[in-house]
């Protein structure tokens, strides 16, 4: 067995495996059954035919008369001979030999059975080119022992054997087919709870961590579903504790940062000394960057599948998200003199609204960070033209663009393309990538219209 077929055997369905295991022994049983049935039928049938032959022989023997002079006469009227020979299917031969094996009557050359301890004795032989079955009877007469042989061709018997064989084969094959059918149906019915379980598992989304319904699960697989449910529960509680940890971390990080940032802002306004003010502005900028990085790290941690497992997935209106993202970033675009707009068609996707909002915020953030003043950033959403239609969102800018050789690398954490300015921490696209993967969506990074700028598109799997 080569490796591929070994793998096939391991991955074979239980139904197939059961059928394969059962079909060999069943076929053997069928063959044995046919042989036994045949043997059981043949013996009485042959006995019946043989008995008829004996009867004919004995009847013929009754017609023997001893003649004076030690000879024997076979005294059979022509009608009786006709009767003896009359047979619908077979040719009947007979031969009467005197005490000294001299011909008395019948078909000359018909073989006789050798003397035996049994009388009458049966023989199988060839005569006139056909197989014959005969019986030889040694009849003791005063003149000596007369040998009478009556034989017939085997047509009748052959035909009977033949018919019997066919009927045995037919009934046994029918039985075999019926058994196979029963097994198939039985296995199918028996496996129904397993198939239902498979359907239950198949229909779950990857984020679904609710326990499997065990009410109709058969005892044999219950340990499996119990193990799965235990695993689900563990993942669920891990995700929850991770969420809890992140919430605490967020609180512990953001509260002092908020205090620091507001106080620095106030100080900047309160101070008149130019030198101090400059340093305060630098401090404030540093604090903002620290806040941004902390936020991004928290978002990244929360976007990880182990944490998102607990997030509630639902039907999300992509258009609403696109419009929201534009409205949210409009002030920043205004400050940077960037024309930020939306081109939204009706589109929906399955996902976590919160994570998708985070994803779009990062995409717009990036676009605004790398687009110079008087540039243009557009958020689009819609459905693809191919069937089944897939929802997508994309953000396009007319900035410097990402060189093709770097497009694969920009989703790495903390990666910043060489020569980039701006205050990004290099986590934006990593967060996007994480969220995209959590949604089984695809991320495409390409150029915008007329090969200028960057276009990042996220296409969701068809619903």
């Amino acid at each position, binding site marked *: 067995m080569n490796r591929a077929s070994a793998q096939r055997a391991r991955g074979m369905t239980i139904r197939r495996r059961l059928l394969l295991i059962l079909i060999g022994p069943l076929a053997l049983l069928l063959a044995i059954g046919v042989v036994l049935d045949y043997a059981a039928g043949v013996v009485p049938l042959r006995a019946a035919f043989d008995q008829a032959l004996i009867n004919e022989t004995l009847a013929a023997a009754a017609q023997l008369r001893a003649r004076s002079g030690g000879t024997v006469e076979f005294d059979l009227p022509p009608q009786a001979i006709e009767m003896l020979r009359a047979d619908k299917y077979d040719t009947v031969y007979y031969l009467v030999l005197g005490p000294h094996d001299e011909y008395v009557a019948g078909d000359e050359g018909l073989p006789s059975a050798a003397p035996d301890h049994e009388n009458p004795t049966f023989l199988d032989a060839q005569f006139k080119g056909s197989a014959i079955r005969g019986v030889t009877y040694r009849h003791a007469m005063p003149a000596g022992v007369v040998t009478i042989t009556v034989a017939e061709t085997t047509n009748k018997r052959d035909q009977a054997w033949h018919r019997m064989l066919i009927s045995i084969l037919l009934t046994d094959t029918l039985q075999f087919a019926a058994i196979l059918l029963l097994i198939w149906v039985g296995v199918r019915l028996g496996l129904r709870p397993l198939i239902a379980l498979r359907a239950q598992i198949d229909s779950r989304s990857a984020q679904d961590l609710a326990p499997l319904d065990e009410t109709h699960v058969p005892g044999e697989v219950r340990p499996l579903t119990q193990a799965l449910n235990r695993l689900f529960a563990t993942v669920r509680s891990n995700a929850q504790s991770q969420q809890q940890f992140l919430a605490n971390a967020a609180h512990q990080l953001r509260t002092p940062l908020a*205090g620091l940032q507001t106080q620095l802002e106030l100080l900047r*306004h309160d101070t008149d000394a130019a030198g101090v003010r400059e340093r305060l502005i630098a401090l404030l900028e540093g604090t903002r960057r620290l806040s941004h990085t902390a936020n991004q790290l928290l978002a990244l941690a929360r976007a990880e599948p182990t944490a998102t497992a607990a997030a509630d997935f639902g039907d999300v209106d992509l258009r609403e998200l696109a419009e929201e993202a534009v409205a949210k970033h409009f002030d920043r675009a205004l400050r940077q003199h960037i024309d930020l707009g939306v081109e939204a068609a009706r589109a929906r996707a399955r996902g976590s609204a*919160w994570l998708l909002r985070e994803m779009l915020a990062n995409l717009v953030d990036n676009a605004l960070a790398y687009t110079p003043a008087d540039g243009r950033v557009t958020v689009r959403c819609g459905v693809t033209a191919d069937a089944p239609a897939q929802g997508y969102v994309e953000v396009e800018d007319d900035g410097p663009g990402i060189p093709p050789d770097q497009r694969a690398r920009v989703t790495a954490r903390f990666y910043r393309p060489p020569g980039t300015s701006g205050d990004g921490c290099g986590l934006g696209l990593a967060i996007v990538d994480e969220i995209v993967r959590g949604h089984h969506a695809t991320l495409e990074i390409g150029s915008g219209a007329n090969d200028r700028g960057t276009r990042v598109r996220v296409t969701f799997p068809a619903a």
Partner: protein
Amino acid sequence: MRILIIEDDALVADGMRRGLSQVGFAVDHVPSAELAEAALQQENFDLLLVDLGLPGVDGFELVRRLRRGGKSTPVLIVTARDALADRVGALDLGADDYLVKPFALPELAARCRALIRRSKSNSDSGITIGPLHLDIPRRETRVQSRAVDLTRREWAILECLALHAGQVVSKDRLQQAISSWDEGITTNAVEVYISRLRGKLGDDVAIRTVRGLGYRLDESVA
């Protein structure tokens, strides 16, 4: 305008108090929900800034109790927690807006003004957005001291924008605001009225175009 800050972190509370005082609000601060409830029994505030992670009774519970007690004072949640459940939970309980720490002071002040304006605009007679003032019962518009004469449809659009100042108002929504008089108004008509409004109100009032989405009336011309 009186604001009560309910925040247990002294540094943040002090920053918010000073920052909001500087832009003209009267600000009080309590470090716990229990003290906030006591303060609210005695005095009236125009806005509450509530931190979610308070010691003892937390922010959620405080908002729930206030709303159950029939208090309609607007609530702005200012918190470090930004998980979806927190956000949705707080808004469902009756909070009016949600701001995640750390924040910039101008943004905090803008949100406070917007919330107070929204809560007043239903009952009060006027809306003031920077130099722009709308006298709603009289349907009069002033920019600083200059009276501006608007047609009914121009007024309807400006009123709609002013009620949602600082927020993007979709073209569809503006169209609905004027379509009660006239069937078959197109979104192009909205563009026409916006450009007339810009002309009449002058450069001190900023009606921004958000491409593909709608318009936004801003508090200050930045």
